[in-house]
């Protein structure tokens, strides 16, 4: 039961480790471990796309080209065409880039020893801000600035209720980038905390056995197997979460773009 006693301290230590820490400069000007891995993911993404563009042929061949094409077609059909609609081609580059960028960041974070670029609120806030500016820009471009602001209030609501609804809609609009950033960050952060917790539990329970082999320690280490099994299951779930979160972020971005460009509510 010493293992359970040591657990809170280890979890606190783990959470502290997951907090942003500068690897170059400081927290204002520099790089944290998350922004470092985000840059690594950006480079990986650029390399993947460069290789893909070079290898892409009329008849796709090979696991790599087919795999990337599958993802791109997924964004094209399920997100761009499915959500944005007729004007999908104009927004496809943004949607495909943001989906693959987040996906690669999430998957890199699942490699032991690496961190997800999306595991820090600063990184997800940047992506959310770009998305916010993007859909507001296209909303203003479609309707004009005044027209876009007017379009926030639903049509057919009588004065003064329409003013009240407009204020609520403006708040809703301003909350969109915040919810986008926090949703992605919390999912990735929490998933990694859970995985880290179970790996700590597996290590703590096995530690006495590794230090001194005895029947007592062997029995005490048995829960480690259970924690390890749960860890593997959570890891598998995190693989799905990595994909789902990239999908959710991209679909919401597509929905916001569609709403911003819609003729009327």
């Amino acid at each position: 039961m010493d293992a359970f006693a040591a657990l809170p301290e280890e979890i606190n230590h783990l959470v502290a480790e997951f907090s942003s820490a500068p690897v170059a400069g400081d927290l204002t000007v520099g790089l944290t471990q998350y922004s470092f891995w985000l840059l690594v993911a950006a480079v990986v993404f650029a390399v993947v796309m460069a290789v893909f563009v070079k290898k892409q042929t009329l008849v796709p061949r090979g696991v790599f080209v087919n795999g990337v094409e599958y993802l791109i077609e997924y964004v094209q059909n399920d997100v761009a065409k499915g959500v944005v609609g007729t004007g999908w081609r104009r927004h496809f580059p943004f949607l495909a880039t943001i989906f693959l960028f987040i996906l690669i960041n999430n998957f890199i974070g699942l490699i032991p020893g690496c961190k997800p670029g999306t595991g820090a609120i600063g990184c997800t806030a940047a992506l959310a801000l770009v998305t916010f500016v993007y859909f507001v820009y296209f909303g203003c471009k479609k309707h004009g600035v005044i027209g876009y602001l007017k379009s926030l209030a639903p049509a057919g609501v009588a004065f003064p209720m329409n003013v009240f609804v407009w204020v609520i809609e403006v708040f809703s609009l301003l909350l969109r980038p915040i919810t986008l950033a926090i949703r992605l960050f919390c999912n990735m952060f929490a998933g990694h905390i859970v995985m880290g917790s179970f790996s700590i539990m597996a290590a703590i329970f096995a530690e006495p056995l590794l230090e001194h082999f005895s029947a007592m320690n062997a029995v005490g280490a048995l829960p480690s197997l259970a924690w390890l099994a749960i860890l593997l299951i959570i890891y598998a779930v995190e693989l799905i979460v990595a994909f789902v979160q990239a999908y959710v972020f991209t679909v919401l971005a597509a929905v916001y773009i569609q709403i911003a460009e819609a003729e009327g509510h």
Partner: protein
Amino acid sequence: MKLINRAGRAAALVAAAGLLAPVPAFAEESAGGASILIPNMAEFIPALIAFLIILVALAKLAWPSVLTMMDERSKRIEESLADAEAAKQAAAAKRREADQIVADARREAADIVLEARRDAESERARIIGSAHDEATALIARAHENIEDERRAVYASSAETVANLAVEVAGRILNERLDEAEQRKLIEKYTEQVGSLNG
């Protein structure tokens, strides 16, 4: 190019928004609690710049060619499907044409067979008629010959019988009757005999 320009303008807007953000608000030490939800500029700025560079670079260099290739593929597939459909239609038309030709050939063959049978039938009838006529003519001619032969035989036998009768009667009657009377008597007799046989 329009897309690139739009992306560039969007990038400029985002960069301006990032630079105008209140820096001190992001600069707090993240030691846990609520501060974990405060963005650090050391993460926000590199992420913003990295994403915008990737977005602009891919929008300019990758996505147009990727979409072009996928469109070209879709077009080729549609064309191939259309060609396959046209080839299928052509094959079906050829098949119908071939079936029509076979049906026509069968009908023609049946007509030919029917005509040949009709010709054979008429030829048979003609041959049988001809043979029948010939046979009738032969029979008639045979009858005539037989009649002639019979007449000749009768004439010859009457002559012979008359001679014999004259001779026999002459011998029997020792020439009481002259020859002319005997001949009349015999001719009368032979006529009676001929009427009995005729």
